[in-house]
């Protein structure tokens, strides 16, 4: 019986194409926009995620999120180190700047100055050189994508020089740092070197990165730091979410994406709903005939839902495939979308959303099937 209703479905090729197109369109738009949105939000906290050893981020009480820096006095570091439960605490300098190659190519950069002694905060993924090479004079670590943007077409090479606020910087390490929210190049260097590259006045300490002792929960230690020092202290996870929430609340990004996603859902539902309604209306005599032959209304509804599920699956497969292709080819290492992808949970969530859309879009049509009078086979449509 299943093969029979599937054949009935594909007997209406134009309508099937319309249905599949509607579902594919909605799937593509929702998945692509959701992927971009999640990618963008992930980017906003990538610096936090890259500091894998760090449990706690400490900052000035006025700081709400990662990209808002209010330098603290260097002595705050010693106060934090004095809080019980702290295994270690190191400084982090963070500033937005620009870099220029000797050839004159200029890019915006995120400069991160890490603890001179431990070099904590440099991404673990090193592609060229050794982290210890950062101890050399004027040494900097640059991310792979930044290198490719500054020296396009050239292989990753150490020893390249950059102009950083009229000071010479030498690339001694190439990292695989995750992309930042807005900067094109991500530079890590020693704290002392960083403050020399970008002087910020008397107070220079952007953040304090700390590790809790093994016997204590980082959350409890963070609360202890806040209570004792009056600074803001959050676990890495808390700070990531604070940063993401800040962008959600204070920028038009979520509204912009939500509008596009909603439009995709509405237009997709409208196409699916109207086409399916046409399909059902045209096939009412056939559904009525099936009732005459002995198919109960419940079973008929199941068969019609199967027809909807088949076009839904086809449309979803095409839409999600196109979205995956988009991220595969648009999110190249040097493109603005680098690092963006389509996580499995977005694909699953979009699948569930599309399934719900199809059910809602076909509800009216299901009513028509349910109440289709078998007597219409004698008299025509009644």
């Amino acid at each position, binding site marked *: *019986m299943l093969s*029979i209703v599937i*054949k*009935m*479905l*594909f*007997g*209406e090729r134009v309508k099937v194409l319309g249905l599949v197109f509607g579902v594919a369109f909605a799937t593509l738009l929702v998945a692509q926009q959701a992927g971009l949105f999640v990618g963008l939000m992930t980017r906003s906290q990538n610096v936090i995620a890259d500091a894998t050893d760090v449990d706690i981020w400490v900052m000035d009480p006025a700081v709400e999120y990662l990209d808002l820096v209010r330098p603290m006095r260097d002595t705050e570091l010693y106060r934090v180190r004095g809080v019980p439960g702290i295994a270690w605490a190191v400084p982090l300098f963070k500033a937005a700047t620009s870099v220029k190659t000797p050839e004159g190519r200029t890019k915006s950069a995120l400069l991160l100055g890490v603890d001179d002694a431990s070099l904590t905060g440099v991404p673990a993924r090193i592609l060229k050189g050794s982290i210890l090479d950062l101890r050399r004079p004027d040494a900097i670590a640059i991310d792979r994508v930044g290198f490719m943007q500054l020296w396009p077409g050239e292989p990753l090479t150490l020893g390249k020089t950059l102009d950083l606020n009229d000071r010479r910087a030498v690339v001694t390490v190439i990292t695989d740092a995750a992309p930042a929210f807005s900067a094109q190049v991500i530079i890590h260097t020693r704290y002392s070197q960083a403050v020399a590259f970008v002087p910020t006045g008397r107070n220079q300490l952007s953040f304090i990165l700390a590790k809790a002792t093994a016997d204590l929960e980082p959350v409890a230690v963070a609360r202890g730091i806040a209570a004792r020092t009056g600074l803001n202290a959050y676990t890495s996870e808390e700070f990531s979410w604070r940063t993401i929430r800040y962008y959600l609340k204070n920028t038009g990004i979520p509204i912009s994406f939500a509008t596009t996603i909603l439009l995709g859902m509405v237009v997709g539902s409208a196409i699916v709903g109207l086409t399916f309604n046409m399909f059902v209306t045209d096939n009412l*005599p*056939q559904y009525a*005939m*099936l*009732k*005459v*032959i*002995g*198919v*109960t*209304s*419940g079973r008929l509804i199941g068969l019609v839902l199967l027809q909807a599920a088949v076009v839904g699956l086809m449309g979803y497969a095409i839409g999600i495939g196109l979205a995956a292709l988009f991220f595969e080819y648009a999110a190249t290492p040097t493109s603005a979308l680098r690092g963006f992808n389509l996580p499995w949970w977005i694909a699953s969530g979009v699948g569930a959303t599309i399934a719900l859309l199809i059910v809602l879009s076909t509800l009216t049509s299901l009513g028509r099937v349910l109440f289709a*009078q*078998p*007597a219409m*086979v*004698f*008299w025509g449509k009644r």
Partner: protein
Amino acid sequence: MSRNGQPATEVPAIACRGVVKHLGRRKFRTEVLHGLDLDVHAGQMTLLVGPSGCGKTTLISTIAGILRPDQGSIALFGTELGTLGRRGIVRFRGRNVGLVLQQFHLFPALTAAENVAVPLLVLRQHPAQVKARAESLLHDLGLAAHGDKYPSELSVGEQQRVAIARAIAHDPKLIICDEPTAALDATSGRLVMQLLRQVTVRSDRAVLVVTHDHRIFGFADRIIHMDDGRITRIDTSSEREAA
């Protein structure tokens, strides 16, 4: 037993008692069947004839359980339809009734063989048995070479034969035909009726044919005349031969 006007079994295949049926709503509500009594017996081909609008189609729809009578009762082979629930009637019809419709109502996306297979698939029979049965029926009806053709590729007469094959595929006890020759010329109509009589009339099965076509009256064992929602006369073949 056939063509003698006598019942083949004690229990009538169709027993209608005091059937009243209204159609339409509110001010358009009209009584179409006025307390109608009717027995149809197995082993016979019974024709239901009468002018347009006399209630023939309403009567066969009610007998097939597609419409419910407002008053009275209908029993098919001793089973009172009123005692079956909505779903029960659909299932009962699926097992026991085959319908041949004026407009055939074949499924256009299915081949002839698949169309014939539908009632068997509805009854969840094994696909291999279904295929064999469909092929056998198409062979019996002279359509062996047309099993893979779609309805649009068949002539009207061939479509009619596919519809007949579909109606008898699940070996129903009652076959109801609504104007089976209306779309056919005289020769084709006669051939279809010969075929219908040949493949449907059996001692344990009743065949009820609604028609306007007086050219096919000769195929009937009994002819029930209807007018204005009532049975006005019943002729048997022996009476007609005597006349």
